[in-house]
């Protein structure tokens, strides 16, 4: 009995930390897909560059963790805004093959750029001293950094959902996802809306990549290595949905952790089977956007 409880706590804890990282990275992908109808396969690259920005700004420029994280998010969001204006906007409502070709091209460019700029090795990520080691809660010790990741992730998710539900920008965003032509007809500047939400999505991905560098190590292979995980989260959650991917991230994070915990050799097979089953049951995702 005792063992079962401690296994459940361990899996819940590590699964939750992993889910937070997955969700922060994937939610932007869901919005781009739902709002603009663009399959952005290069989305993982934003998370990767967020991770590089954090680790490099800490190691080379000697910035503290928080400053490096903020710097990374701002840089990547700005880069995302530029890319949206220059490249992505050409794809709106366009052919899917064009989208795939362009975004896969961006993936290759990002791989080569990362390899050229930072070498092929995994980045060494040191959490700030205050978050290193373990903390004890109710007689059990937990790694401090992951506890922080869960709290921080929960806070960000709450903030994001509040913003989407309660602000004017959120209302415009929801309106545009539901019916873009009607949104335009009532005077919403969808072009501007697209640019802002794309930049926000990129920034969130960078935040996820930077915060999650301990769980998903940053290397040039990152955008390809974890692409399937990000796409799974969006497909299972429901493209365009804000809440659906959270549910999917929880499911994926916890089941992946459970397999690594009990049966690491067989993990990915069952995860893929689970995804397949869920998509056959609900092809439009757990929480389809209208």
């Amino acid at each position: 009995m005792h063992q079962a409880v401690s296994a459940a706590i361990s899996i819940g804890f590590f699964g939750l930390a992993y889910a937070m990282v997955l969700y922060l990275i994937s939610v932007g992908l869901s919005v781009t897909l739902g709002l603009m109808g663009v399959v952005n396969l290069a989305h993982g690259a934003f998370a990767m560059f967020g991770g590089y920005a954090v680790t490099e700004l800490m190691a080379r420029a000697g910035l503290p963790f928080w400053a490096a994280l903020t710097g990374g998010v701002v840089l990547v969001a700005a880069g995302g805004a530029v890319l949206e204006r220059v490249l992505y906007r050409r794809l709106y409502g366009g052919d899917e093959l064009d989208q795939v070709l362009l975004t896969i091209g961006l993936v290759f460019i990002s791989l080569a750029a990362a390899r050229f700029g930072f070498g092929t090795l995994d980045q060494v990520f040191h959490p700030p001293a205050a978050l290193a080691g373990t903390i004890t809660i109710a007689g059990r010790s937990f790694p401090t950094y992951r506890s922080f990741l869960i709290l921080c992730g929960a806070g960000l998710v709450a903030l994001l959902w509040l913003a989407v539900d309660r602000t004017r920008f959120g209302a415009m965003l929801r309106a545009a996802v539901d019916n873009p032509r009607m949104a335009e007809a009532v005077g919403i500047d969808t072009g501007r809306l697209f640019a802002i939400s794309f930049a926000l999505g990129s920034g969130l991905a960078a935040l996820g990549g930077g915060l999650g560098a301990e769980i998903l190590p940053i290397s040039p292979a990152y955008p390809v290595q974890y692409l399937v995980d990000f796409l799974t989260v969006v497909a299972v959650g429901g493209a365009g949905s804000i809440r659906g991917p959270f549910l999917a991230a929880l499911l994926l994070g916890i089941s992946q952790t459970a397999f690594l915990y009990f049966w690491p050799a067989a993990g990915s097979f069952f995860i893929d089977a689970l995804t397949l089953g869920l998509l056959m049951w609900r092809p439009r995702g757990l929480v389809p956007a209208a």
Partner: protein
Amino acid sequence: MRRFATMLAAAGAALGLTLAPAGAKTIRIGIITTYSGPLAPPGISMDRGLTLYAKLHAKDLPKGVKVSIIRRDDTGIAPATAKRLAQELVTRDHVQFLAGSVYSPDALAIAPLATEAKVPFVVMNAAAADLVRKSPYVVRDSFTLWQVAMPMGEWAAKHGMGDAYTAVSDYAPGWDAEGGFIAGIKAAGGKIVGSVRFPLNNPDFAPVLQRIKDLHPHTLFIFVPGGPQSTQMMKTFNALGLAKAGIHLVTTQDLLIDSELPKMGNIPLGVVSSGTYQEASPRPANRAFVAAFQKAYPGSVPDFPAMQGWDGMAMIFRVIRQTGGKFTPAQAMDILSHYSTTNSPRGPFHIDPATRDVVENVYIRRVEKLKNGQLANVRFDTFPMVSDPWAKMHPQK
């Protein structure tokens, strides 16, 4: 007829001239190792060791003999690439030695070509036990995981660490480390309470280690390939507080590879491991090696792949020196497989002519803080002249 022969000789001489300056004989050595990609660090280390030996000992070569090292990048665990590179080195570059191989799958792909082309293949790291049986032209100066892990198991069982859990990367060297450790601990009266294999390309070790923490074995044996994963594993081990929970870690030199130790902070302090080489060894041959290495590559720490590259090149140089640079593949294999030295940075070692595999000391070491504040693997016990136990347990039919 005679005219034809003269022409042929002239053509041969002309060809010879294009290959090497007049009067000089060049021995071509083809190195296939990992120079790029996430698995490159041990390959680069190996290259530095062998390059350094060749540079420092070029003066010891017979008069008029030169060595030309041709480097090829297998990019990691990529047997098809390794095989193609070996083929090119043999047919196009006419190498007289093949050498290198960090990873066993690559070495296993090269071995049949060594047989076909009759080119001696000096394996400088790849540790799969049965590799030496794949070709009579393979000779190995590194180690097998059985050879290193079995003494660790024996030592653990004899020192109150007889209830152990094993956790290894799920690929051949990991299975060998697991097999060797279990055989060792059982031979010395200990027992295994559980075993787990985790994927080689695992992004996150935390769930695996957390399970072990929840099960709380007395002793934990870990194997990961030496390199960046070593640091990642030790950091996760620390972040989860396994040591604080009273779990005793034992391992092989891969997890505590000398070149990664400086990146681990104080985490591995006190951890016991088995290995064939430690950078901190006070042996004069090793101090000279370390000094030369750090002079040639400032800021870097030589580790066991570097030492194996160095020793492998020393073996090749012995062939060239003993024969004056003129040898058949059979003669070269004869000298290589009777190689013996007391003066390697690791200490004494020799090649067993029957198996063409290395026989060497396996050291039990503990991570300690040196006077200069740096961590190092420090030897405190020795299993003298160990040969591969797997080969003894699985005699060749």
